């Protein structure tokens, strides 16, 4: 029942989006960045902060709901929630907000993420304590410390089993960089990336090199959701939340799916089963996709998990601009986490909305069905957004 339950279908819409500039190092605090992004999103929606009665963010978010509400004069707040698992929870903030609105718990929900991670010293792995407990005790003393090591571990096995190679990872990095070059707000908008650059780059965790890694970024992004009924009265064309889903795969652990017996059955496969079960369309009907790309292999995992190709054949989608504008499935059209900004996947949600509105800097002509997913190495989530009338 729950796998195919269509209770949320098109009942809510994203009516406002907003983001700060993205930078390696921004002067403001996370609190200031969040306030700026949320105000922009509300202005875009044509709503006053005092109309907000629901708030949703990540469990890792540093700015409290109470702080944000007080800072922006939102008044009383009647619903709030957080989603776990870092970058896996991005789309889930929208799914939760939609659920709150559809079940009458809130009328206007703001969901957001703000982050200051540009400085290396601010990265969590650089602050590992001298003694670690829990699962870390069995992982970190050997030197498996950084997220990139964990992803590279699963990636090499995936490459071994499917025949995907570094050429395919290069295709992904280069295609997404080309999209960033069309987006003046992208951190890498004026930096080309050639195949030669890719293969000349230093390795970080073999088989992954520098360009397989996202850009640690300072910035914030926010969205505003209301009911479908209310959305049609607001200034922007509504972007309906057609379907939302989450997933944890059997036995997988955060960033360590390799500890599951069936380690290549990723969280996204569970999420996909539910997303498509609740949707009116099939993967082949999607016009444009924003796929969580903190590391290039995650794009392969997600393409496969969400059914954009047959099992094990994601690499066949990447050559010859297959993931670029005019290709089989344009992905990460604003530059993604690899080349626009790494905001735990929140900028991907904004780009999914822009595509349906027709306002992307790498617009897929006539895009009506926009897919966006969160990290496929942790408990994850995904959304299917659509334009047009309800």
């Amino acid at each position, binding site marked *: 029942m729950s796998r195919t339950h269509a209770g949320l279908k098109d009942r809510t819409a994203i009516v406002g989006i907003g983001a700060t500039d993205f930078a390696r190092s921004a002067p403001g605090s996370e609190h200031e960045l969040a306030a700026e992004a949320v105000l922009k999103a509300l202005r875009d929606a044509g709503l006053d902060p005092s109309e907000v009665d629901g708030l949703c963010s990540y469990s890792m978010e540093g700015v409290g709901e109470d702080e944000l509400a007080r800072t922006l004069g939102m008044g009383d707040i009647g619903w709030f929630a957080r989603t776990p698992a870092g970058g896996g929870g991005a789309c889930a903030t929208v799914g939760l907000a939609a659920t709150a609105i559809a079940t009458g718990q809130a009328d206007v929900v703001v969901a957001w993420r703000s982050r200051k991670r540009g400085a290396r010293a601010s990265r969590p792995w650089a602050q590992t304590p001298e*003694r670690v407990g829990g699962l870390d005790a*069995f992982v*970190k003393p050997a*030197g*498996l*410390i*950084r997220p990139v*090591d964990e992803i590279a571990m699963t990636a090499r096995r995936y490459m*071994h089993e499917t025949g995907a190679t570094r050429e395919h990872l290069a295709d992904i990095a280069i295609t997404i960089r080309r999209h960033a070059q069309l987006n003046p707000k992208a951190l890498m908008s004026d930096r080309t990336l050639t195949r030669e650059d890719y293969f000349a780059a230093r390795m970080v*965790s073999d088989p992954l090199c520098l360009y397989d890694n996202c850009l640690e970024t300072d910035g914030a992004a926010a969205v505003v959701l209301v009911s479908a009924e209310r959305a049609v009265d607001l200034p922007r064309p509504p972007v309906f939340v057609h379907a939302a889903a989450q997933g944890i795969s059997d036995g997988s652990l955060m960033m360590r799916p390799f500890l599951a017996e069936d380690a290549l059955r990723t969280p996204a496969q569970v999420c996909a089963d539910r997303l498509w079960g609740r949707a009116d369309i099939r993967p082949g009907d999607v016009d444009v996709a924003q796929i969580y790309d903190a590391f290039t292999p995650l794009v392969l995992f997600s393409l496969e998990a969400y059914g954009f190709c047959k099992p094990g054949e994601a690499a066949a989608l990447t050559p010859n601009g297959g993931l670029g504008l005019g290709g089989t499935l344009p992905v990460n059209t604003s530059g993604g986490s690899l080349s626009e900004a790494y905001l735990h996947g929140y900028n991907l949600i904004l780009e999914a909305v822009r595509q349906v509105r027709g306002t992307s800097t790498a617009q897929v002509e006539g895009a009506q069905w926009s897919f966006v997913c969160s990290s496929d190495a942790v408990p994850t989530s995904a959304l299917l957004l659509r334009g047009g009338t309800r």
Partner: protein
Amino acid sequence: MILPIVDGADTAPFWDAAREGQLVVQSCGDCGLLRFPPGPVCSHCRSARHEWTPVSGDAVIWSFVVAHGPTLPEYAEYTPFPLAVVTLAEGPQLRMVGNVLSGQDARLNSFGADDLAIGDPVRVAFRKLADDVSIPVWVPALPAPGD
């Protein structure tokens, strides 16, 4: 080096055994299923009874990476060095993370990317990191006589 907390209530028997040069995992006190990493309940029969059981120490490489910098200072002098996930001979549900070394006291970078392959057989050894800490590491297994 980062060290494990070795006196935790759920994990102390693992580290006590490692100090003695023995690899142990939890085994369910009711159905006998072996499990690692440790946990409070058997995921198969949901029994909370368990004991710690020695395993052979034979494993194969499930996957590996070669870590280059930047990393923490105490590991940086060894980069690039390999890290592996191995599957224990006792079952596909038993995976461990560890260094792959030419011997238990070898430098972390005693092997490179070209020396390892998925599926390679390895054997456990123990590397002393502190007076109270030895961690399992993996050494390529010699082919058995007759292979």
